[in-house]
């Protein structure tokens, strides 16, 4: 592990200024991802700027009915928050389906969104990886890629974004509040993560040194009828091999509004707009849900080992929406 310095900034402005001045500095939140990657030599910052003491740990109800979640709110606190449980069950479920109790106690909102891919080649400095070392190649493209992307990948990178939280936030049209050297701005969650394209090492649309300060959820009464389904290789403590966040608003049996997002299929949380279009305005049926999923997955290009993700994602789309329609989320 490379020797590094540690700094605790007094406020947001100082944190951003330090990152601007120190090209190899990184923010440290819960450290559950960053510190692992430092031990593995995958990330090698020379300065850690600890954001956990900044006043970013509040969950506040907004006048318009939305919710503002501080960047350092631990995943477990957020999942247990009464408003989240009541108004955004999809979010509470996504959080509780992730990692383990111990990890959720320290993992933060901001850190969760910016966690790195779990691609096994990315985590092994002995192997080619364009994301870790631009230009070195992508070992996963023709290697072991069962867990990787089926949508929107490039020859340069076929990784997926591993976060469950991000998938729920994508469905909820969350907005990320960031501070950059140039000032504060809002970034829609759907625009936070990039497609891998030619530059898989650039994972987000944020400027280097940008600090996430909060995530804002718009008021969305329909989200009271929402759910998150996650499929994994063991009952607990495993990343998704398929997941879906769903919000369903029915008028009688007609779909008035719907939000769908997929996890484990792409380099970013995958908002399923096409499927939503297919569903909106039509009487709901499981067959319609299946058609919607098919529309969304029509452009999927499975890799050698992950063709199963298509029937899987389709199946959980149907199940999630059907359960919401019937009022029986499992």
């Amino acid at each position, binding site marked *: *592990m*490379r*020797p590094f310095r540690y700094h605790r900034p007094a406020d947001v402005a100082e944190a951003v200024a330090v990152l601007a001045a120190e090209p190899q500095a990184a923010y440290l939140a819960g450290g559950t991802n960053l510190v692992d990657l430092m*031990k593995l*030599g995958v990330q090698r910052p020379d300065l850690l700027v600890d954001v956990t003491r900044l006043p970013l740990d509040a969950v506040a109800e907004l006048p318009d009915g939305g919710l503002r979640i501080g960047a350092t709110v631990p995943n477990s606190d957020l999942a247990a928050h009464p408003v989240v449980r009541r108004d955004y069950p999809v979010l509470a479920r996504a959080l509780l389906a992730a990692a383990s109790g111990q990890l959720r106690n320290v993992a933060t909102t901001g850190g969760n969104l910016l966690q790195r891919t*779990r691609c*096994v*080649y990315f*985590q*092994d*400095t*002995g*192997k080619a990886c364009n994301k870790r070392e631009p230009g070195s190649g992508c*070992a996963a493209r023709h*290697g*072991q890629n*069962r867990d990787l992307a089926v949508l929107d990948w490039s020859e340069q990178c076929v990784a997926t974004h591993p976060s469950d939280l991000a998938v729920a936030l994508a469905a909820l049209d969350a907005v990320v509040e960031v501070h950059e050297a140039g000032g504060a701005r809002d970034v829609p969650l759907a625009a936070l993560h990039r497609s891998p394209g030619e530059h898989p090492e650039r994972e987000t649309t944020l400027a280097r040194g940008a600090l996430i300060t909060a995530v804002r959820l718009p008021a969305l009464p329909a989200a009271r009828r929402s759910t998150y389904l996650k*499929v994994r*290789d*063991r*009952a*607990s*403590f*495993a*990343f998704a*091999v*398929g997941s879906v966040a769903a919000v369903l608003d029915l008028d009688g049996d007609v779909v008035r509004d719907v939000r769908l997002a997929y996890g484990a299929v792409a380099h970013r949380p995958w908002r399923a707009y096409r499927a939503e279009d297919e569903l909106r305005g039509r009487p709901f049926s499981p067959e319609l849900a299946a058609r919607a999923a098919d529309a969304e997955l029509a452009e999927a290009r499975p890799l050698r080992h*992950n*063709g*199963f993700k298509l*029937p*899987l994602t389709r*199946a*959980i789309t*149907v*199940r999630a929406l059907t359960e919401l329609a019937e009022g029986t989320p499992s």
Partner: protein
Amino acid sequence: MSAGAVGRAYPRLEGREKVTGAARYAVEYPVDDVSYGWAVPAAVVRGRITRVDAAPALALPGVLAVVHHGNAARLAPGSDRELWLLQEPVVHYRGQFVAVVVATSLEAAREGARLVGIDYDAGPHSTVLTSDHPGLYRPDHVNPSYPTDTAEGDFDAGYAAAPVRMDATYRTPAYHNNPMEPHATTAQWRDGRLLVHDSNQGASSVQATLADLFELPSESVRVIAEHVGGGFGSKGYAKAAVVLAALAARQVDRPVRLALTRQQLFGPIGYRTPTIQRVRLAADTDGRLTAICHDAISQTSTLHEFAEQTAVYTRSMYAAPHRRTTHRLVRLDVPTPFWMRAPGECPGAYALESAMDELATAVGMDPVELRVRNDAEVDPDQGQPFTSRNLVACLREGARRFGWADRDPTPRARRDGRWLIGTGVAGSSYPARARPSSAAATARADGGFLVRINATDIGTGARTAMWQVAADALGVPPERVEIRIGDSDLPVAPVAGGSMGTSSWSWAVVRACEALREKLRNAPDGVPADGEVTAEVSTEEEVGGQPMLPRYAYGAQFVEVRVDVDTGEVRVNRMLGVFAAGRVVNPTTARSQLIGGMTMGISMALHEEGVLDERYGDWVNHDLATYHITGCADVERIEAHWIDEQDAELNPAGVKGIGEIGIVGAAAAIANAVHHATGVRIRELPIRLDKLLGLSALA
């Protein structure tokens, strides 16, 4: 032995120390002036090291030395070439340790390891086991010393003539032992003597290996392994960590602590070989087996021949007039496979007990009844009667407890909402062996006793079991007995492995206690006020002179699974095992061993798989986030029971060993239950949802 402690449920003697963190493991002993070693793995699969550039590492503050083939102390070429470390500029597999960086801090050692520059001249390699590999050969014997192939009757003719036949090939992947505590050592040289605190399953054998490698008299090597955080076979012999630590400590002339990382446990310490197993069974129409053939393929390395005895299970399990078993190996450019809980029996039983289930379907017979019908009174392999064989009793008792009786054999007949439900059964057996051991018992003036034996408690409860056995053999309450284990200065004892720890050690403990009582009987004045009386024994002659008889423990595994009809997710609703394993010394720790083995069987069936990338020649999922091991949430209800079994042909304590039998057959029972639930037979473990979905079997 007087009745008393044996058979009663005592908590582990060291339980409190362990849960409070007071128990010390190999790299936790406080040592003055200690330094830290970090092992450097080879970055190519096969080739020669052309240059080692230590300078960048040595330039790092805190780095004391870079030990490699060019400067390491010379080792005698022992019998296991995996241990002949840092002696030659040759790489035999990716990840083989080629250097150690020693530093004054762990962090500096780790960073130093990254900075060592090693150039290789890499050659072509082959790392994937296939059934048509050009390198397949017939080893001279399989582990530990079984004949490679066996044949009775005429399998081909018997098979051809039978009215019912099944022929299937089963595959198991590489499995990695992953004990909680990694292989780890603190090594110190003092006046030419080597002291190691090491995590292993047998300090006597590690002592002997180190003495050989470093060409020292065995008295000059002391190995302490007081608490060991698991091994599952992988610490059965000395492994790389202890040799590297000793080499490094010699180089820097100060104590060195070296622990392998989790990633480094995936290969260099051994693993369960992948297997490809073809099983053919033939029966008459009432289910009596007429022909059995089991052909097993597994891999070994270019360094050392490790020939897993995969088909040996089939030789003694069920009777039939025509029988054949074969083993073939391939030498690949991979780390040498090694023992993992029930080596041979475990993968072999997966294949045979799955095949029996397929045969039951083919004959139209209940799978419990099929096994009962083919029970053997005489060992089909050796021709002698078993000293005790309670397979049928286990099957019957298990069926009763599990509620097997009304089972509808039709696959995919039970459904509960989105879940398809199925049940499965498998037989289980494991040899009951013992090895010679020594032990000493001492009477103290205060009425207390001390029993010493270099047994190892790898988390099993062995220390507590020996204490109970000793108390009964001495005829005193256990509170008066102190037990000391885990140190090569104690009387020599065999490894905790092969389910023969308790049988071997208790034998010596009983004899030592008997010898002490005899001495005390002959000492009318008793124990001198300022002294003690000691008896030390070896069971070498007695164990060696025991007649060779077929001695086995048996079991029956019952499982109910549910399979999600849309996603293919498999969950185990309940699992129940009944075992016949001789006398049970401590029900608490015995139950832990049995349900631990069964849980590991769930893991084998559903979760674990070393995923190899043939281009890099190593397992890419080399950590516990990606190499999934069954967690608590996967084990909803699990029960282990045993039947009362007395067998006078075993050993003084009457035990058969319970460390391994719990895993044998478990994976087959699950695979059989998945078939019953879904109608789909997955013959390649692990049974993951993508295989069920991929077959579109559930649609």
